[in-house]
């Protein structure tokens, strides 16, 4: 049976397919459970990017580029910063200072909670996109 070069790693490919959903789920857990346990946007972004890096290492960069294109990554990089800055500007428009989350909801404590979740989401999106972009640009130069 003729094997294409990448197909020699059949076991790795199947194990990777099993692992990737759990890596992503763990990243989302770290992202949204960062209020209660250790974790937050930076760590979650890196773990989420690690799932794509694993995919790229095992299935080849071309496949991963089809899953998430470099253009989409550039847009996501900016989106994360805009989510963060947007949260701050919305709180300014509501009459407070920059990043004053108290005004995001009727109850200041709820407002703080929403603000922190949004801000951490922005951090996570930017870090994920930057890490995957780094991986793309380092491993696509041959």
């Amino acid at each position, binding site marked *: *049976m003729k094997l294409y070069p990448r197909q020699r790693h059949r076991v790795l490919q199947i194990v990777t397919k099993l692992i990737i959903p759990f890596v992503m789920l763990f990243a989302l857990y770290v992202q949204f459970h960062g209020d209660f346990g250790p974790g937050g946007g930076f*760590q979650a972004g890196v773990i989420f990017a690690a799932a794509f890096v694993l995919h790229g290492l095992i299935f080849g960069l071309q496949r991963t580029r089809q899953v998430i294109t470099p253009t989409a990554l550039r847009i996501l990089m900016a989106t994360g910063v805009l989510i963060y800055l947007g949260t701050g500007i919305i709180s300014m428009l509501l009459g407070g200072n920059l990043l004053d*989350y108290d005004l995001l909801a009727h109850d200041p404590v709820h407002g703080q909670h929403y603000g922190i979740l949004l801000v951490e989401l922005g951090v996570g999106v930017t870090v994920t996109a930057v890490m995957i972009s780094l991986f793309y640009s380092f491993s696509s130069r041959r």
Partner: protein
Amino acid sequence: MELLVIVVLLTFLVAIVIGIIVLRDLLAAVILLGLYSLVAAGIFVVMDAVDVAFTEAAVGCGISTILFLGALSFTRHEQKPRGNDSLVAIAFVVVTGGMLIYGTLDMPFYGDPNSPAQQHPEHTQHYLTKSAGETGIPNVVTSVLASYRGYDTLGETVVVFTAGIAVLSLLGLVRRRPEDEAPEDAPGDVPALSDDDSERHL
């Protein structure tokens, strides 16, 4: 007990660093760098800095190992034999390292009761006792990072964003070869079986 664990882990760190210096095989050195980050993360856990340990394990052990491996694919896996410049290099490294160690002498020691953080306990006490009520978030690290010091974290996010733009503008402008765009046989595809293959396949 805690002291013993820290001493053992620090000894590991020194052994790993000596290994990195001595090894000629760059691939092994990269793996040891990842191990260094993992042991450092262990030390942070012992010092109750779980958030820092988490970041160190994910970034130092995971992503930077991958990036080093990517950089290794541009070069050879074996370090060149050292020339006559090694004495100059050692002198330079010793002077730089000495200056760095001299710089850390100004910092308070671990758990020093005379450190500024302990001399003005009202700030730490405020975060530790009031932050859960003020932000509704039990993890003090998260509430300080995202709310009390949200402006700093905005700056950090912009730094990450800027680093991404910088790398893309330096490395991302390489013209892609046509074969990168359209792989002849995408990895993972099942090859077509010819007649003589199918027997063996059964």
